């Protein structure tokens, strides 16, 4: 029995070590890397955060005029998270009915960044957008709405810059020349 004690102690330590490793590794994929498209989701707000209203540009489909509609987001402690919620509310807004957001189907948000100078960099994905269904005028309305959802609701936003898939692209979707930091 005395001879088995060291062996048992070693086995116990090994089991504890493997268990600790598995616990710390959690739900990660092979090699400890995240599978593509499954970045860790960080909640933009706490469910207990109070709600707040933001103005979002819509297009009245009967008149073609711009109308501003109140949308609800959560007043998270991070101002940046509030901005991101506002942009997502704009991008994911209604695309049919009496009014719609001037956002083409397939437009998605990759990421957003806020600089100390008050410039918001909005990194968009246009891979899902059909260029035959998104002309210059529609690009203008879309960008106007994007800039306004940030500048009208958040005083610290001084300018908005649009990136396409992380790059300073020459155009948004074929017509509107980017490289602007227009507010």
């Amino acid at each position, binding site marked *: 029995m005395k001879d088995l004690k060291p062996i048992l102690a070693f086995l116990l330590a090994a089991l504890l070590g493997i268990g600790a490793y598995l616990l710390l590794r959690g739900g990660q994929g092979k090699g400890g890397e995240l599978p593509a498209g499954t970045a860790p989701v960080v909640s933009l707000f706490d469910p207990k955060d109070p709600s707040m209203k933001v103005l979002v540009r819509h297009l009245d489909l009967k*008149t073609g005029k711009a109308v501003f509609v109140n949308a609800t987001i959560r007043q998270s402690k991070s101002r940046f998270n509030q901005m991101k919620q506002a942009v997502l509310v704009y991008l994911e807004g209604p695309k049919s009915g009496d009014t719609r957001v001037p956002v083409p189907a397939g437009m998605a948000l990759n990421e957003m960044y806020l600089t100390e100078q008050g410039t918001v960099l909005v990194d968009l994905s246009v891979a899902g957008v059909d260029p*035959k269904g998104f*002309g210059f*005028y*529609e690009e203008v309305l879309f960008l106007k709405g994007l800039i306004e959802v940030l500048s009208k609701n958040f005083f610290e936003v001084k300018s908005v*810059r649009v990136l396409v898939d992380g790059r300073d692209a020459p155009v948004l979707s074929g017509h509107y020349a980017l*490289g602007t*930091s227009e507010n």
Partner: protein
Amino acid sequence: MKTLILWMFPCLFSLVGSQVLAGPRIALDAAHGGDDPGVKAGSGTEKDWNLDFAQDLSKALDRAGFTPLLVRKRDETLPQEKRDEMINTLQPSVVLVLHAEREWSGTQRGPLLVVQPPNRPDGGGGDVPRWGFVSPSEFRSSLKLARSLAQGLGVGPELSSLSDSRGSVGEKVAEDGRILCLPHASLRNLTPPSVVLIPIFLTSDADRKALSGDERTAFIDRIVQGLKDHFQMDVPVTPTPGVGGVDPTPVTQGQPTPEPTAVE
């Protein structure tokens, strides 16, 4: 020898004179083409509409005494860089880039005109390397062209409220303004005064109806008149009071002298 010189003189004159009297060169760029169809609405495709309209406009400009230069003459793929190079090499007096548009509600109508805004004076934000340089004077030239066309088309000279603030400072802005001062990929590298002309929204039934048949011809004639105003062609001459007989007729470049009319 004297006889030879006398015979040569008219030939030389016609050679030089034809260049001197040639009308202003108008580059017409029918946007998209080939693999790039542009926007689509219903059965209409932008590239086909642009080419068709450019060809009709070219004929009208030619009749009016201008020298139209078509950048795209058939359904072919022309990258933007190649178009820019062709246009800048041709050194036209002005450039009209023709686009057809679409819009979600179907209520938005043409015509619209787009001019490239000037860069910020300080070139802030690194705009210059990304865009190329648009000086305030280049912007003013393009805006003047846009306003002449707007006047010919019977729309106001105000800038749209959608315009970039770099160009709208000090300008009259209206919600229904027809001139958009916004950065357009078709304009960014062009050196002559340039305007994107959007005659039609393919999503508008009213526009499609208005730009067919005789009304289309009238619309094209209004564009030609706008260009004439821009180049101050067909400037009316006030007849001298007390001189009867023949009404003094304005001499225009490239046009035959019209029949004299009696003074009323």
